[in-house]
């Protein structure tokens, strides 16, 4: 006990701040090993998933297009491209709807709401994240889609000259716009709770300084909170995007998906998402079709990987002048 107490200050003064494993403390070495192992485990899992997708998908990736046309779903690139578009398009629409609302809710909870209201509201938002996606799918197809029909018809008759709202309106409301609204509801809690945490960490002194200089509350948020939180917001949005890209069940259940590239939001002919295509076709697929669906999974894996890398890059670039330092 005494030996440790005396040795620590001298050691800390002489050695660099991060000491290596100390042979005298087996606990330290053990914990270091466990933490490293956990870190490596993530790499192993990722590599296993990527390896599985590559190996099982490669027969379709390298197959002769003619063979793929007869035994699979058709030539790979032209087959998968509309689904790539559908995946990205649905996720982008969802973010477009969800991000402003999520930031609004988070700001309300962190800076506007009285404390007695803020806490239960935060719990409620977190609860929304616990609703299973199959329930969202049921709600979307049974309640939301029919309810959206009048709005879709109005949009189409009055704003039909905009390409987004053009075309023949679907008679069931099971369009990509409905899917995007459901996806937005699903990513809302993720983005909201992350943003709330970041907003709460904005330096109190900056906020008080802004208020003392005569800023209104909105000006204070604009000058002291948002610049500080920007990398956090971006990270939150990217996490939400990852969820929206990979969401399967809800889209499978409520989207009238087909294989075409279109911007139209209200028609029956919506580009399907990769995850939904796999879920719909895998049960009856065999032989080369299975390989082709797994190859589509590999494409989805690469898209999410790219999204996450871009997010990392943006966060690291913005961190330097975020105002936090």
């Amino acid at each position, binding site marked *: 006990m005494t030996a440790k107490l005396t040795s620590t200050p001298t050691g800390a003064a002489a050695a660099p701040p991060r000491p290596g494993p100390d042979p005298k403390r087996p606990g330290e070495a053990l914990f270091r090993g466990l933490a490293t192992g956990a870190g490596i485990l993530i790499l*192993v899992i990722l590599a296993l998933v990527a390896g599985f997708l590559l190996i099982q998908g490669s027969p379709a990736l390298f197959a002769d297009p003619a063979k793929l046309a007869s035994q699979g779903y058709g030539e790979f690139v032209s087959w998968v491209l509309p689904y790539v578009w559908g995946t990205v398009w649905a996720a982008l629409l969802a973010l477009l709807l969800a991000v402003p609302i999520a930031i609004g809710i988070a700001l309300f909870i962190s800076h506007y709401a009285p404390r007695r209201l803020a806490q239960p509201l935060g719990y409620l938002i977190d609860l929304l994240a616990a609703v299973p996606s199959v329930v969202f799918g049921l709600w979307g197809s049974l309640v939301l889609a029919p309810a959206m029909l009048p709005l879709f018809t109005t949009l189409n008759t009055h704003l039909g000259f905009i390409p987004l709202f053009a075309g023949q309106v679907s008679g069931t409301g099971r369009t990509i716009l409905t899917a995007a609204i459901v996806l937005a509801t699903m990513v809302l809690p993720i983005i909201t709770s992350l943003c709330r945490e970041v907003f709460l960490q904005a330096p109190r002194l900056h906020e008080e300084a802004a208020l003392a200089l005569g800023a209104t509350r909105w000006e204070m948020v604009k000058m002291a909170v948002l610049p500080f939180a920007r990398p956090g917001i971006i990270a939150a949005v990217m996490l939400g995007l990852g969820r929206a890209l990979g969401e399967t069940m809800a889209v*499978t259940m409520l989207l009238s998906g087909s294989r075409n590239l279109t911007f139209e939001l209200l028609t029956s002919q919506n580009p399907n998402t990769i995850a939904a295509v796999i879920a719909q076709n895998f049960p009856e697929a*065999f032989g080369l079709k299975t390989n082709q669906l797994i190859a589509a999974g590999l494409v989805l894996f690469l898209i999410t990987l790219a999204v996450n890398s871009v997010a990392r890059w943006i966060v690291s670039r913005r961190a330097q002048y975020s105002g936090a330092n």
Partner: protein
Amino acid sequence: MSIKPIAVAALVTAAALAFTGCATNEAGSAGTGTTSGAQTLTGVGASSQKAAQEKWVADFQSKNSSITVNYSPDGSGAGRSAFIAGAAAFAGSDRPLKDEEMGAGKFAGCAADSNALNLPVYISPIAVIYNLEGVTDLALDPATVAGIFAGKITKWNDPAIVATNPGAKLPDTAITAVHRSDDSGTTNNFTDTLNKLAPDVWTEKASDTFPAAFGGEAANGTSGVVQAVTGGTGTIGYADASAAGKLGKASIVVNGKPLQPTAEAAAAILDHSKTVAGRDANDLAYSLDRTSEGVYPAVLVSYAIVCQTYKDPAVGALVKNYVGYLASADGQKAAADAAGSAPLSADLQAKVKTALDSVK
């Protein structure tokens, strides 16, 4: 940094693991089925038979407690390839084996000189379901049905629909035609019907996948189609008649007579169809004649595919026993109650029994 080499090593081991993992998987899946004991019967095949097979398995096992029957509804294609590979003792399939798929010695689970037998066990009418306010009775001729699902007839008050429904108040509403987004035998039989009865309008061949060129709304599975039709306005779709629920079922006009998708009108199709020529007398593969008088044309006929002679006689006995039950009056009634299928006619039940008696 001492972590880098560790990470690299981890990646290498991971890749190695991925390779070995895959290899063991493949070996495992090839071995299943052949290793199953004589008292376990394995069937793989059509998901259309799923509800009926669940009932059949439950009933059969309660009578024969020492026998375990496994039917996995992985799809017709998966069933046929499992049967060919010998991984399943029998296959459930929404179509019989084609001539080029038949042949002695082509089936791993059968004896070297044995061909396969296609036996119909499950008949289900496919209803054209619709949801249109104010219309409770709708009759459509095949060309109109084809026009609607091909996206050529787009309004409910189209002259083609008015022609067969003179009394109905048809609104000026757009038609939303709902099809299956997943591959299915229902789609195959429905598109085959349209192709046979209205070849000028329905130019695509029969296919498990709904032809993308015709557009329309897609929904996942039978329940998805029924639910999309129920929830929409001016919608029409196709699904097993038993799944239609409260939705209106359109009559299809064949030879001037409107026919509802009833069990009798559906089962009659096999009495009017001929078996595929050039096959063994006991092979009951039918080429469906969807144009006969009094026959509801959109019918799904699902088969049990078995060996003439099994490599393992014990398996052959089990198959005879089980498939015999499926095609019996009891079995057909059980399926009609549980899955809403159309029972085989007594004549056909006898034919299937004769065929099964020849199985060794």
